[in-house]
């Protein structure tokens, strides 16, 4: 167990590789109750969310969700989050555990004098269990009357799960199909047990370690590592969650300016061409000069490669560009590869060919 943002969380149960492979091949169960939940409600809730978040919330019908971000005026990340439209005038923001207070304060400040809207920290009302992997639907369906085949990617529904009332969304952080189930904390244990029983040998309890290797393979950014208050949405390659046509939002002006001039650095995916793991904080060298830092890195259990993400000068981020990473004093060669490193459902994982 490790301390994580005030929570005691398991790094692993049976082992990171075993848990990781289970999610890719059958299913894994994660207790992600540490995630924060903020609610924004009121007659002006949509306008408020449009002002607060980078993506276009008006595209959401009640029952739909989207990946979006809270930005600073500079276009850097206060947080990245999943926005759920519960009702036309009621939104749920699922945010990073470490950022609940930062997010709440930023939102509350921006809503000062705003109109008919309120923000609430509802984190203590929700436990969150995540079932991820190709077998997820088969495992969850027997426990609920909700027809999961009707719950499409990035939509959600309310119902009962192991006789516990809650909400299920087809979302996750692993690159696999999967479901996240919001239930009251007092009853989370019962739902966990029911899921484990339903899953049998096909369901492996998973910890933070596998969550990190899975999300990294899927090219998903991690707040605090790949994105933070110093990196903009464009530098992070998350321009796709910025809607340029919607009403103005916090950070829009800075991002428009950056888009016009072009970014000087970009988050790139890479693989190592020599053994080792390039971990967060390792210095990156392009043509012998220090040029950035690794933000995430691991040996991937699925691809059996050492992969990672790093901020590089934009001119050095084209596919196949080579650079070096300093791993404890050893210069290791690396090469830019497209993200995601792993993509489900199209046969072979998408990676560049290995070079010996």
């Amino acid at each position: 167990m490790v301390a994580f943002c005030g929570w005691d969380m398991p790094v692993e149960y049976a082992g990171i590789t075993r848990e990781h492979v289970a999610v890719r091949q059958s299913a894994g169960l994660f207790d992600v109750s540490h995630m924060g939940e903020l609610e924004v409600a009121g007659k002006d809730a949509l306008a408020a969310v449009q002002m607060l978040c980078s993506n276009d919330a008006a595209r959401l019908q009640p029952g739909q969700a989207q990946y979006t971000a809270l930005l600073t005026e500079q276009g850097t990340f206060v947080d990245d989050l999943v926005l759920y439209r519960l009702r036309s005038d009621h939104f749920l923001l699922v945010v990073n555990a470490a950022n609940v207070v930062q997010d709440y304060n930023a939102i509350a400040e921006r809503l000062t004098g705003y109109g008919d809207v309120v923000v609430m920290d509802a984190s203590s009302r929700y436990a969150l269990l995540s079932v991820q992997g190709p077998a997820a639907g088969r495992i969850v369906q027997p426990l609920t009357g909700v027809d999961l085949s009707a719950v499409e990617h990035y939509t959600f529904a309310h119902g009962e799960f192991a006789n516990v009332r809650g909400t299920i969304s087809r979302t996750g952080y692993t690159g696999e199909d999967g479901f996240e189930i919001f239930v009251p904390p007092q009853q989370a244990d019962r739902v966990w047990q029911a899921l484990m029983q339903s899953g049998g040998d096909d369901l492996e309890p998973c910890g933070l370690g596998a969550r990190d290797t899975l999300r990294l393979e899927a090219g998903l950014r991690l707040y605090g590592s790949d994105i933070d208050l110093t990196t903009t949405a464009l530098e992070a390659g998350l321009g796709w969650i910025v809607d340029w046509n919607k009403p103005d939002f916090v950070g829009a002006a800075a991002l428009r300016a950056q888009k016009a001039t072009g970014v000087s650095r970009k988050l790139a995916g890479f693989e190592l061409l020599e053994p080792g793991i390039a971990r967060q904080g390792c210095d990156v060298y392009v043509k012998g000069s220090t040029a950035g830092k690794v933000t995430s890195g691991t040996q991937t259990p699925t691809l059996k490669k050492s992969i990672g993400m790093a901020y590089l000068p934009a001119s050095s981020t084209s596919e196949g560009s080579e650079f070096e990473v300093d791993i404890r004093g050893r210069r290791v060669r690396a090469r830019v590869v497209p993200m995601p490193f792993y993509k489900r459902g199209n046969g072979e994982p998408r990676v560049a060919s290995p070079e010996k």
Partner: protein
Amino acid sequence: MNYPSTLKYTKDHEWLDVAGDTGRIGITDYAQKQLGDVVYVELPAVGTKITQGQSFGTIESVKAVSELFAPVSGEVVDVNATVKSKPEVVNGDPHASWLIAVRLTKPDEARALLDASQYGDLVK
């Protein structure tokens, strides 16, 4: 886990298997469990001199990087190529997966190491 009585152990969770004037060095079952899936080991070349208690390499799992500490002083005479190419064998059979072999320069050091029951108590 059974800690073989033929091996000597350190508080840093390495083992030493002495035969004549040479000894093989590995990490214990306790150490591999703490590390989890081992994916990389960095070991000294043959001929390198190592000193008791000092780092002689690193072992890396998905979860963490850990220094390897020399149980005895000596000169490296052999490096286990299998462990270098398939680091996961350390998880499978830690007490058989030696990392390096050294010629002991201070054989008395080995006698002062923990025996299996002392080490077993340490990690209980």
